[in-house]
């Protein structure tokens, strides 16, 4: 798994590549534990995420809770169909805004 971070118009974008499972999710958890000062929104770009398990969902929910408590929006973009299916079945699709692409997300968040 690889994690990259960019900032575009006060939106902090965290792009995750590869697999988010029990062995890799602690790394993302660490990354999402602090919300950078001045952020208006957080975007998890999962366009290159090929796999997610319940351990990955746990980190996403934790990050969403932290953002909500800090008054910052957290959104997700770019889910491939098998990953989107996991978000749907876990009930996360109705909890966290999911955008088809990074551009579509930024059009709303920025």
């Amino acid at each position, binding site marked *: 798994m690889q994690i990259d971070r960019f900032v575009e118009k006060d939106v902090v974008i965290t792009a995750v590549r590869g697999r988010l499972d029990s062995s890799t999710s602690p790394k993302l958890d660490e990354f999402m534990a602090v919300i950078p000062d001045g952020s208006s929104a957080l975007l998890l770009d999962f366009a290159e995420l090929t*796999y997610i*398990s319940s351990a990955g969902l746990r980190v996403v929910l934790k990050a969403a809770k932290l953002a909500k*408590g800090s008054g910052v929006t957290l959104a997700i973009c770019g889910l491939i169909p098998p990953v989107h*299916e996991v978000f749907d*079945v*876990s*009930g996360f699709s109705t909890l966290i805004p999911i955008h088809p692409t990074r551009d579509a997300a930024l059009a709303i968040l920025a």
Partner: protein
Amino acid sequence: MIIAQLDLRLANDLAELEPLVRALEFFAEASALPEKVAHRLTLAVDEFVNNAVDYGYADRRAGEITVSVRHRGEEVEVVLADDGDAFDPFTAPAPDLTSSIEERRIGGLGVHLVRTLAARFAYRREDGCNVVTLAFTLDG
């Protein structure tokens, strides 16, 4: 080439997951499984092996987990067996899927995901082992 069957034997150690996932990816590719079916298959094995290793051996004894994957007609069938403490995963309560972000409980989603995505699932205790059988339809 079509690989019809995959049989793996692992120790009750999370370090076994990485080679296990590689083997499943190889099976999925060699059997030309649709993307969604491959993801469901890996998810099922990942969730159940994690649970068995984390909760099945409270006294930390060494144990053995076997994973068999079979391509059968319009289905992929998975049989997972572990010699851990007796536990039927399908008796776990349904998770909360509707409350707000603040109230949503973290965790408890693994078994829910797998049982929802599987076409059928069953548990039996046999010869000192927990045996879980799952089937996924190939049309996703």
